[in-house]
């Protein structure tokens, strides 16, 4: 049998906060293949690759490269061995030219001076060699994402990479760019390179992968040749059981309009207009979904609605009250709950206790306040214990700091807070991203319960399954605009929705106006 180019044996990684991200992972890559490393968010893929690239030290385990045991203490070691990594977030200097970026750290010199001409020549040559052509003299900041990614790949190739790791390379690409990337990858393989491709998009694995390794919850969950498995098989390996979650949902009974959003415009400083007149409304007792590839303005829209970002213009009314430009506190006091997109950044204070996290929106109100200045820690504790039980948060008690919990349980802390404020409007942004199936099912069902209680729910999710399962009505965002509106999801297929998300299909303006109901 052929020697694997890379073998990682029994890799364990425990982070300083006690999180065990890899629990004895084995990973084997054969030379000349495109190997897809699959898994849900938080399954341990990125940790494993960071260990391979020397960005993280494993707690225990061994790495063999071309049959020899190696120790990779830093990216330098990895590069010297011939391992290259293209990160999800590009590490380029935007103000430098393409050629300057590519030769950065190994600049060609004439005498003591940097030679631009040589840098251009090197860039051109390596681009031609691998069929990844880039404009050497352009500044990186002026180039689209697809080209930037090529520059990253070329950078690693110029440094002699034979094994390339690409961390979710298609997450930021348009369909056309994705196609071009895949062509380039195939060409690289034909020239003897080996590729590790981190993803959770199964269709792409089917398209270009040779073999897969699936991680689940920090452990190996399967290995297979791509041709032997279906997408369903792969997803089952990823989540550990059939992906169909059981959501109990009856048809919605919408009441009066709670949230009315009109003509929101937003331009980030120094950029082009990002939100181009967003209008929609949400009624009580219904869930309005916002679908779309991430980065099409959803985050900014939600931040404007929740008072975390200042929009250019527009109107946000909650039960008739104008809240455009209001503070987060004013918005929350207007009976709005918010499940933020990034729970570690905005959803919780990891070092604070569970119970303290549960009152951040209400510690100043009775029963948690005592007099004008004080808080009632006993009431806060009782509330904590009650919610830990009610939401099934796995913790010894509510005084445990949130950082000791798993991702799913941390998200339960967030929803336990947001679902108990008795809000008329719940804004949920990626409420189940990267958490285990049990917690996902729980949270989705609770969202439906909140709707049935009479709350208006605005749901943003990049997870197609989620938006399609939960939404009563749906809008699709693409490049800062609403490009599609569905007043019912009956008969809507993922493929059809995908066309809108990729900007291939767009509804007529009259149809999109219907997203505003009264």
């Amino acid at each position: 049998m052929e020697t694997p180019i890379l073998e990682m044996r029994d890799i364990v990684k425990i982070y300083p906060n006690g999180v065990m991200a890899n629990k004895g992972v084995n990973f084997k890559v054969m030379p000349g293949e495109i190997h897809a490393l699959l898994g849900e968010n938080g399954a341990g893929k990125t940790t494993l690759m960071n260990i391979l690239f020397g960005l993280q030290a494993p707690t225990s385990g061994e790495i063999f490269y071309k049959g020899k045991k190696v120790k990779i203490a830093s990216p330098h070691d990895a590069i010297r061995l011939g391992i290259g990594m293209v990160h999800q977030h590009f590490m380029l200097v935007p103000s430098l030219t393409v050629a300057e970026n590519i030769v950065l750290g190994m600049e060609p010199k004439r005498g003591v001076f940097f030679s631009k001409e040589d840098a251009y020549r090197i860039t051109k040559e390596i681009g031609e060699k691998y069929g990844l052509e880039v404009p050497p003299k352009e500044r990186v900041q002026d180039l689209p994402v697809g080209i930037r990614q090529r520059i990253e790949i070329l950078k690693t190739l110029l440094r002699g990479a034979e094994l390339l790791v690409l961390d979710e390379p298609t997450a930021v690409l348009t369909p056309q760019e994705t196609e071009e990337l895949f062509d380039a990858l195939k060409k690289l393989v034909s020239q003897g390179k080996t590729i590790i491709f981190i993803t959770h998009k199964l269709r792409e694995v089917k398209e270009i992968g040779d073999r897969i390794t699936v991680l689940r919850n920090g452990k190996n969950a399967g290995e297979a040749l791509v041709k032997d498995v279906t997408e369903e098989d792969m997803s089952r390996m990823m989540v550990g059981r059939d992906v169909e979650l059981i959501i109990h949902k009856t048809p919605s009974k919408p009441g009066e309009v709670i949230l009315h959003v009109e003509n929101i415009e937003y331009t980030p400083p120094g950029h082009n207009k990002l939100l181009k007149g967003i209008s929609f409304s949400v009624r009580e007792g219904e869930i309005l979904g916002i679908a779309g590839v991430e980065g099409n303005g959803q985050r900014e829209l939600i931040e404007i609605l929740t008072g975390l970002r200042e929009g250019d213009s527009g109107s946000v009314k909650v039960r008739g009250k104008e809240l455009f430009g209001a503070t987060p506190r004013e918005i929350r006091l207007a009976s709005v709950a918010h499940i933020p997109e990034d729970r570690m950044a905005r959803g919780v204070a990891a070092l604070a206790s569970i119970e303290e996290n549960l009152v951040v929106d209400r510690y100043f109100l009775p029963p948690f306040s005592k007099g004008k200045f004080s808080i009632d820690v006993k009431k806060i504790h009782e509330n904590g214990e009650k919610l830990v039980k009610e939401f099934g948060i796995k913790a010894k008690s509510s005084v445990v700091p949130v950082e000791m919990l798993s991702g799913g349980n941390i998200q339960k802390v967030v929803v336990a807070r947001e679902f108990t404020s008795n809000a008329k409007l719940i804004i949920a942004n990626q409420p189940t991203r990267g958490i285990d199936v049990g917690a996902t099912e729980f949270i989705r069902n609770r969202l439906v319960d909140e709707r049935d209680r009479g709350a208006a729910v605005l749901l943003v999710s990049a997870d197609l399954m989620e938006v399609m399962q939960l939404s009563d009505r749906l809008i699709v965002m693409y490049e800062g605009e609403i490009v599609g509106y569905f007043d019912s999801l009956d008969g809507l297929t993922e493929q059809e929705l995908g066309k809108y998300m990729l900007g291939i299909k767009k509804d007529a303006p009259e149809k999109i106006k219907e997203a505003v109901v009264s």
Partner: protein
Amino acid sequence: MKKTSSFEFIRILVAIGISLILGFLLTLLLSKDPIHAYKYFLYGPLSKTRRIIEFINNSVPLIFTGLAVSIVFKAEQFNIGAEGQLFIGAVAGTAVAILFPHIQILHIILVFIAAMIAGMLWAAVPGILKSKLNASELVSSLMMNYVAFYLGLYFVNYYLRDKNAGFLVSYKFPKTAWLPYLYRRYHFHYGIIVALVFVVLVWYLLYRTKIGYEIRMIGYNLKFSEAGGINVPNTIFSAQVISGAVAGIAGAIEVTGLYHRFLWQNLPGYGFDGIIVALLARNNPIGVPFAALFLGYLRTGARIMERQSDMSAEMVTVLQAFVILLVTAQAFLSTWKQRMIEKASRKEEEENE
């Protein structure tokens, strides 16, 4: 959680132990009679009543500045302005002590209020600059120290100076502006009691009030606090101002308790010592008096050693540096901590199986 905090405690003790050993080695090298010198350093502060009182009195301003710095550190903000806040507090206190009519009880209270307000105003400047303009409080609070120093000296020199004294000091305070004595000899004043009251007050503030909750939450995670509805700029401002009030009072205690006049010719350095105290106490108000007494003990021990032997008191700065270095060095004993965490995680993992 319990484990990691007890780990911190052990880590600090180990750091102190190592520093004391290093200090002894240093003494061995430098002193003709090292055992004698080091004995005075270690036991000196406890050897006579006068020295015990000296050591406690020395610790009082450290408790105050330690508390002041802890409040701001809790909010993950910086305050190296405690020095200036304390200084200007002492100046304001001096002004009221000398210029205000001599009414029993009321007089001393007014001295303290003036010092508190002066400290607050001083802290408000970096507070406003930070919360409104996002100007680094590190730089502005440091700058305010020099403003306090020169402005304070100017004020004392031109309005409060005792011209009969041979050097730049203020008039002696009237008795109504003296902090009462616990024990008349050796100037054992009420400062330590007031300091301990403030320990409890600051603890209550941080853990039992709305503003305390806000301060701690923005310290834990500013973006989370913002999304939760906490007014972050206001909280930053409040933390700075409350801290300034505490530091200002320390100034008043020094002038009304120990000297009964204003006599500083230099910044006394208590504000910077407050940073060390807060660091050793891990910003926990309950830990502050212990850390301050420890530092006060070292300082007093060093002074006694200097008086009694051929060693210089500066050695204590070296020891202090060792302690701070070891306590702040994240990696110190971190392998041990990591191993503890790993063991716990593996155990938990097995239990889940």
